[in-house]
């Protein structure tokens, strides 16, 4: 079965993971820019990271016949430092014409602070100015509900932003409805303890339907599973979903959203 992994932090993963994903049917992996697990000391750290995402990772993936795409931004965990954020935002346009860049992401909120909000607004503005797709990270655990509402307000207030060009990631049962009602796409992240399990993600699909929803592993430097998407596809099969419906969710949906970027091409 073919699938697309629309959210994975492959810079933190070993090469064997690319091989396992390719063996499981992965055709493309998309990597949003995120926190490295520690704060970078200067904008130069982001320059090197963006170079890694646009030059090195595509080559590593290509060895297994996998297409690699990425998103660029400063993440919300480093957004409390507004001066650093401004420097990183000024750097992003220099990389936007690289062939594997899909848009601005994963922007969003972490602790729902005023500075995080300011940096979010600046990056929504950046996406609007450069006509880029947007991928949004919503906060963790107790902060998710409030953060998702604040994020939706920022996006709705910027009239240049078309909702169908925005994916709000890491939705759960208490946030999925407000995202879909706003006309945006919603991502369900299959991550141990803090996000969705395969069973809950499939529940959400069964309740809300198979449109404008995708599944991702968000595998990174934490305990996480690069094969979470195909494992969830298997769980859908166990629950009696037909092969066509499964492929719709794990392949056609991400392809449909991501194809709004001219850089997203699956053929070699």
């Amino acid at each position: 079965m073919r699938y697309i992994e629309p959210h994975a932090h492959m810079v933190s993963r070993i090469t064997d993971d690319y091989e396992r994903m390719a063996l499981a049917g992965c055709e493309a992996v998309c990597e949003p820019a995120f926190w490295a697990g520690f704060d970078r000391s200067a904008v130069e750290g982001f320059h090197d990271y963006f170079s890694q995402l646009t030059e090195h990772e595509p080559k590593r993936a290509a060895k297994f016949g996998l297409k690699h795409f990425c998103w660029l931004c400063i993440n919300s965990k480093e957004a409390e430092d507004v001066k650093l954020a401004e420097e990183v935002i000024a750097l992003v346009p220099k990389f936007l014409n690289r062939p594997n860049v899909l848009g601005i992401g994963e922007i969003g909120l972490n602790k729902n602070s005023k500075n995080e909000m300011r940096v979010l607004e600046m990056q929504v503005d950046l996406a609007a100015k450069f006509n880029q797709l947007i991928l949004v990270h919503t906060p963790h655990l107790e902060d998710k509900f409030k953060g998702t509402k604040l994020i939706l307000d920022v996006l709705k207030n910027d009239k240049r932003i078309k909702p169908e060009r925005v994916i709000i990631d890491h939705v759960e049962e208490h946030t999925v409805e407000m995202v879909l009602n706003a006309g945006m796409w919603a991502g369900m992240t299959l991550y141990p303890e803090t996000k969705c399990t395969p069973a809950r993600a499939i529940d959400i699909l069964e309740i809300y339907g198979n449109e404008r929803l995708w599944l991702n592993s968000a595998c990174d430097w934490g305990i996480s599973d690069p094969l979470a998407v195909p494992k969830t596809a298997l769980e859908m099969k166990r629950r009696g979903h037909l092969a066509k419906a499964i492929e719709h969710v794990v392949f056609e949906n991400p392809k449909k959203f991501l194809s709004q970027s001219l850089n997203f091409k699956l053929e070699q």
Partner: protein
Amino acid sequence: MTTQQVLDLYFLDARHKLVEIASFLDRVERAGDEDDFRLKAFHEALTKLNGKEKAKNVLLAFSDLTVKPIAKATTKAACGAYPDK
């Protein structure tokens, strides 16, 4: 899925998780001090198991339901329950 299929697929798994929750609460009780905001949120969340939209309402029981951004992020981490409820 039929009820029979749901139970065949998920009953043992759910039973196992319920026993884990019970033993967690016994463990907390043995430790003595039950005056922690996380535990209070946990008990509030348990009451949601009797109503509709259980998963959604359990998640909301742990959530910050205020609407204004906080002044400053002093930590990066989330702990799973909102302290000032």
